[in-house]
Each structure stands twice: as structure tokens, then as C-alpha cells.
């Protein structure tokens, strides 16, 4: 395939899936402007590094990797937002202050660390296969499985705590 054809395919993919990409970006930063910034930067990065996409069947996982990395970088760079790992936060706060009044799984997912959140979103909201998530994140499938279960356990315990409270 010549480069211009590849570019066209990537371009079509980006245009067709822009809403899904936006939702993913938004789920990290929770505000419109930042999510739009992430989309813009991801598109630029992707199109400029189109040579790094070696096989076209990996188009989706390749683009998601760029999108996820850009989102996570954005959270780290954005000084207004302080990301604290849940374990650290749990340690520092009395347990009742961590709780959200509504028993809402969606909010609980939001409170996961960015990497755990990524797994939940890709697997359950984006219906991505474990193998594809593994390719996207550059890990082996077994690692992804283990981490996914850990994330689910974390969610379950958060939910249970809330039910008790």
C-alpha cells in the first residue's frame, strides 16, 4: 500500500470514529476544552507518525495507544488537576470522606487511577478484546487480564463499601 492510501484510510478512520475518541478523552479530563485539545494533539501526532503504523489491521489499536498516551500525559502536565493514586488517597483520608453519596458505578470508575480506568473503558465501554487491549497498551494479554480483574475487584470493593455505609 502506498503512503497516500494509508493516509486516506487513517484519515477516514479518524473522521468516522471521532465521537468515540472524544468520549474516551473526555472520560480522563472531564472537561470539553481539554478533551478537544487531546483530540487535536492525537490527530496531529498520529498523522505525522503514520510510518509507525506498520500493518493497517492495527489501525484502531495504534490510534488508541496515541490517544490514551496523550490523555494520560495531559493529566500529568495539567497543573490544575492533581492526580493522586487511590491507594495514597485512601491512606490519607478518613474513609467516609472518600465516599460519594450516590451508589454509582460510573462515578466509581471515574475514581480509578487512569491506567485502571483505561482498562475498564476499553474492555466494557468500547468492547475491545483483551488481545487488542494488550496490543494497544503494549503489554501481554495475561498481564492485561490480571490488571483488569484487579481493577474490577477494586470497583467491587468500592461499591460494597458504599452499600454498607
Amino acid at each position, binding site marked *: 500500500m502506498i503512503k497516500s492510501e494509508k493516509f486516506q484510510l487513517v484519515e477516514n478512520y*479518524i473522521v468516522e470514529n*471521532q465521537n468515540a475518541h*472524544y*468520549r474516551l478523552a473526555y472520560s480522563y479530563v472531564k472537561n470539553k476544552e*481539554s478533551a478537544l485539545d487531546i483530540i*487535536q494533539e492525537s490527530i496531529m501526532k498520529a498523522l505525522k507518525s503514520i510510518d509507525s503504523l506498520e500493518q493497517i489491521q492495527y489501525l484502531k489499536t495504534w490510534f488508541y495507544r496515541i490517544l490514551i498516551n496523550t490523555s494520560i500525559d495531559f493529566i500529568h502536565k495539567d497543573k490544575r488537576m492533581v492526580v493522586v493514586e487511590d491507594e495514597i488517597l485512601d491512606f490519607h483520608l478518613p474513609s467516609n470522606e472518600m465516599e460519594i453519596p450516590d451508589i454509582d458505578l460510573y462515578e466509581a470508575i471515574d475514581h480509578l487511577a487512569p491506567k485502571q480506568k483505561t482498562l475498564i473503558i476499553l474492555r466494557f465501554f468500547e468492547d475491545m478484546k483483551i488481545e487488542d487491549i494488550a496490543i494497544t497498551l503494549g503489554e501481554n494479554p495475561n498481564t492485561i487480564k490480571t490488571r483488569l480483574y484487579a481493577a474490577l475487584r477494586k470497583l467491587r470493593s468500592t461499591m460494597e463499601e458504599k452499600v454498607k455505609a
Partner: protein
Amino acid sequence: MSKLNESKKQYNDIEIPSELKQLVNKSIETVKMGQKSKKPSFKRFGIGVAAAASIFVASVNMSPALAQSLSTVPILGSIVQVVSIQEIITEDDTYTADLKVPNVTGLTDKALEKRLNEKYIAENKVLYDGFQKEMEALKEVGGGNLDVVSTYEVVTDTDEILSISRYEANAEGSSFITLRTDTIDKRNEILITLPSLFKDNGYIDTISNYIKSEMSKEMEADETITYWIASEEEIGFESIRPDQTFSITADHKLIISFDKYEVAPGSMGVITFEIPTDVIKEELMSDYYIK
């Protein structure tokens, strides 16, 4: 897990802003344009900025006398004029540069005229280059706001004196303002400098002491006012520079100016002090300019 399905619905309900489509198309276009462009330095900005940049470079390279004047400030009783060469560059609301360059015409001393105008153009060129560099850096990290403004004001304009102040504001999160003023003796066609007004360097201490006592007075009178004055414990304003920014008012009073952040917190902005002529009477060379 039905709860997961509910959450998935919530996820899918994330509102898609109307700007998204345009932003996606624009981002793709920008990359496409960049790949076609022959000029590597403008590659990442797309053709819009490249074109705007070349217009600006063209206008600064143009002879000031030929430059198209967008506004004219006529000066009564004199043929000395200040006109604007203006160029505005805007890109997607996030990055703006609005540079307004003054241009003095009508002096018979063409060397002085040329020197002034070339200086004004050079100042704006530096600002513009800095703007471009910063824009590039910001794009690299994927965002931010950049807003560069330069403008000028004819602060005094009498038969004898013309004072032009140039302001530069660079608002990237917080704004920074610098102020430079040139004062011209229109009759004799001389560019007046601060040292040239005085017999010797004694004026530096006299004016500095006066300003420090005024600062203390103002701070005592009003709690919301803060100046940074140097003391044994603190770093701050000690003395004016020999070529501190100054202007002369229409009623022949000397005004000393400080840039934003130079002697006070940013909230105080650009600070000016009118120096009573009595304070500097002994030091003045003559009462020709300052009375």
C-alpha cells in the same frame, strides 16, 4: 453485570460538542498542509499563519514612508506625524498576535526619523519572533493560550514636545507589560534622553529617594497598595536606571515609569510617578523642557 451496562450508557451519553467535527477536520488539514509546504519552518502552522507571517515580514521590510497607513494621528501646528503600520495575526482563537507599530513622519532630520522608526519595527520584530517560537513550543506540548499585544499611545503632543509610549503585553496565563517612551523635541528635532535633562548623575539619587518616600507614603495611606522597596532584609526597588523610562507632560512635568512587576506586584500594573519640579530644580540643566 447490569450496572456495567448502565455505566456504559452513561459513557455513551457523554455529550459530543458541536466544535468537534470542525476541530477534527482542521487538525487533519493542518497536517496535510504541513506535508505539502516547502518551507520547513512554517510546516506545523499551516498555510494561514505562513501567509500572515509573510505579510508581516513584507510590511516590516517595506520602507516606512511607503507603508500603508491605517490610521493617522495628526499633530496640531506641526507636520510631524505618527501613523500606524498594523498587522494582526490570529490563529484558532488560542494564539493571537496584535502588533501595532508606530511610524514617525515629517521630521526634517531624516536620520533621526529613520532611527526611531527602525527601532520601533525592530522591537515588534523581536516580539513577533518570540511569539512564533512560543507558539511552536506550546503546540509541541499540546495547548495553552498565547496572546501578544503591542500598541502605542501619543502621550504628549504640544508644539515643542512629542512623547510616544509603546506598550507590550504578553498574556500567557499572566500578562506582562513593558512600557517604553521616546520623547522628541519637535522644534530642535532632538531625541531627549533622561540624562540629557540634568547637569550630572545626581538626579538618579534625587529622583530615587523621592519615589521611595512616595511609595512609603502611599503604602501607609492605603493597605491595598504594595511596592517592593529594597531594605536590609528585602530585595526591591533601590534606584532608577540612568535611562529609566520617562515622559514629559504637556505642562512640562517629568513622569517616571516602571514596567509591570518592576517595583510592585503585577496587580499594580505599569506604575508612573510625576516628579514635582521643585524636587529636581537644582539638578536640571535648564527649565526649557521641565518647568
